[in-house]
């Protein structure tokens, strides 16, 4: 089933993102489970606050990392995250 990406994605209340010192990475915690996030996933998810639109997330990331052409990667990640039910 194809899940649509929300206009302004926000993490579902089932999930909590936090930095884990012992693992040296961000994780997503949810009922009885945990996903380790790589650096780029964490940077995208930090901006999924229900305020940023998808284009705004892309723009901010491109500015922050002084690069261009992130649109496709961000879309792919957001689509996969939607399918996993990470967004409200």
């Amino acid at each position, binding site marked *: *089933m194809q*899940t649509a990406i929300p206009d302004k994605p926000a993490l579902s*209340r*089932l999930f*909590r993102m*936090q930095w*884990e*010192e*012992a*693992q040296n990475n961000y*994780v997503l*915690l*949810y*009922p*009885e*489970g*945990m996903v380790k996030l790589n650096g780029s996933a964490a940077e995208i998810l930090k901006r999924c606050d229900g305020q940023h639109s998808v284009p705004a997330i892309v723009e901010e990331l491109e500015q922050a990392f002084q690069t261009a052409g992130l649109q496709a990667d961000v879309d792919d990640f957001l689509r996969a995250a939607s399918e996993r*039910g990470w967004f409200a």
Partner: protein
Amino acid sequence: MDAAAIPPPLWLLAELTYRCPLHCPFCYNPVDYANERTELSTEQWFDVLRQARQLGAAQLGFSGGEPLLRDDLEELVGEGRRLGFYTNLITSGIGLTEPRLARMKELGLDHIQLSFQDSTREMNDFLSSTKTFDLKARVARLIKQYDYPMVLNVVLHRFNLDHVDRIIDMALEMGVEYLELANTQYYGWGLVNRAQLMPTREQLLRAEAVVNEYRARIGNKVRILFVVPDYFEDRPKACMNGWGSVFLGIAPDGTALPCHAARTLPGIAFPNVRAFSLREIWYASGAFNRYRGDAWMKSPCRDCAEKNKDFGGCRCQAYALTGDAENADPVCGKSERHGEVLAVVMRAQQRVEDGVRPIVFRTDANSRGMGNGGV
């Protein structure tokens, strides 16, 4: 295994007490739980939580028995959340009053897993040997009223596998986020009652088909986890994701365990948090190092291409069914003892109602009569 190669524990399960108002015949608690009544104090648990968090554990489960029987549960939840754990309460719901729910919400409890024994009052109350169905239904409504993320957990076996459709309907009606349909694992009381609980293959296939129909229909509305019963498989489960790899369980008396059932294994001295630090226990104890890596394996595991995938299955099951914890878990088709598992499944197909002894409910009286192994 070199301590530097050992990953930190991620999942701390605090089994606060073995006391429980229910009497479920598939309970995975030790069958001789009634002989052990010592429980850690609040301060001792605080210390365990702090140490585990320092080691890197991020998930914290409060379980039992029924954890609500501890008056200090709220304090422990609050401390766990303060330390940065994702806090899970795993409960029968008995004793989950509105004031306690409200207080734990304030203290930051992240999620509640509520167990039901069936979708019908009759079967729920028969299996738990209590009149608790209506109470549980009220508790489920309260949990949602307080907007907790909620998992509904139902243990499946021959008495309720045919009700899976109604169980899913009940989950939809409750508005839960996850439904865990956990086929009985045959440990503890479940092993004692294996002949009574083992379903037929037809029941299992029908239930799986129903689950798949619902999944296609309801999408992500409720995420359904269907825990496959390993006796019907021909490869073992990657038990605990490997011994001493992720999971650290602390029994009510402070015994540290690499899995809930580990105390059924003979000849292993499991360390107690009252005598050792969690760091010593996790990295240096003989018990936690015993089945790390693959040096302990025998044939066929030793030479198996899948040994890093399933770690030879479950040590407790290997011991319970073959008498040697270092054997391959006999649910594996490569085990020379696999035929015995097939025979158990076969007997379930042919079962006649008489000739099977009655269910042994989890009660203090039954427990006192049990040895460590359950027979």
